[in-house]
């Protein structure tokens, strides 16, 4: 399932549109070091972190995109950087647990 489809089905707002790709799984973490060490390529990363470094981490790990939970929106610089890098940044009104729970169900059903 592509990032845009996920955004559509989980009611996530697209804050920065990137290069669309298959979402293989999800990864939930608020610690950058954890994501760097453990997240797999093609994951959609769910977090409350929203500072500039998230873009670099997502690029480094070739993630499908970032979902900011609890409706948080980063500063314009973060979105601009994501746009330049072709990285999706989405925002969901719900908490990380809920978004992860729904994404898990969605991906399981599509397999």
């Amino acid at each position, binding site marked *: 399932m592509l990032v845009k489809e996920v955004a559509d089905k989980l009611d996530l707002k697209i804050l920065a549109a990137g290069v669309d790709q298959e979402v293989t799984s999800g990864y939930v973490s608020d*610690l*950058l*070091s954890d994501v760097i060490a453990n997240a797999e390529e093609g994951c959609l990363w769910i977090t*409350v*972190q929203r*500072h500039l*470094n998230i873009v670099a981490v997502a690029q480094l790990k070739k993630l499908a995109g970032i979902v900011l939970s609890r409706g*948080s929106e980063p500063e314009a610089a973060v979105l601009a950087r994501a746009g330049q890098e072709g990285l999706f940044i989405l925002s969901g009104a719900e908490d990380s647990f809920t978004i992860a729970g729904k994404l898990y169900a969605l991906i399981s059903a599509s397999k």
Partner: protein
Amino acid sequence: MSENNKLARYAAIFEDIKAGEIMSSNVVEISADKKIAHAKELMKIKKISGMPVVDEKKQLIGIISIEDIIHAFEFNKINDPIHRIMSTQVVTIHKDDSLADVVDKFENYKYGRFPVVDDDKRVCGIISKEDILHGILEKFNLIYIHDQKRTSTLNTEYSAITGEKLKVEEAEFHYQIDSSDIDAAGTGAAMLKQFLTGKNFHSDIVRRVGVATYEAETNVVIHSRGQGDIYFYQHEDRFIVRVVDNGIGIEDLDKAMKEGYSTAPDYIRERGFGAGMGIANMKRFADKLVIISEKKVGTQVEMIFYLPTQTWPLI
């Protein structure tokens, strides 16, 4: 510096607030020719402990208190007219008086409340210490004082919210924050919570105090680069928590107030801090919050938590 001087400087911060804005305007007054028994009934129904007394032109001429009524009882004068026993030495506040004037009255006279009058000496309201508190806080749920005046309230013994005295040595709980150890952040809040749990306060207020204090303490550890202290006071119907430090102060409080904004460095964020939710959490869990900060002088966080209300029976 004299106490009044300090107070006056403190009150100057709120100099634009007039007595008329913070008074209770549904004041119960009584005519001087009514019987004392009548005043007693009225005070009982309205659950008040004193009333302004007015003449036929509705001008203020005295005040009657519970003490006066008890006195009348003792001497069997309960059916006398009020003007026989009322106090005529009434200290009043004018509705255009500044908050500083009001605070002065409370300091100089040990009365619990003062009638507020207009230019015609007609009673238009009444001010109690509670009204000062509520009046200010109705206006600002959260106050930040960001100008030269703020130094006058940093490190004083007066509450930035209520103006009441908060002596360091009278705190019921004190914890010195070790700001060199990030692993210890929250220890003081956890100890305060334990202290309150031991006193059997309701778990809801104890938790709120714990969470808000935890955030304030964490801010001292992460951001202040100075020494800090937590002080806890219980005053009648409320808990007051003060977290003070002598650190670098908050650079830009408008930004700091924004959820998600944080100046925490990466290594701090990797320890799960610096989500930019600290002040938001304090605001959410405390009933009232005031943060006063000055660059290179320090930061003072003061929070009020109201205990569930109690009503006291009257005579």
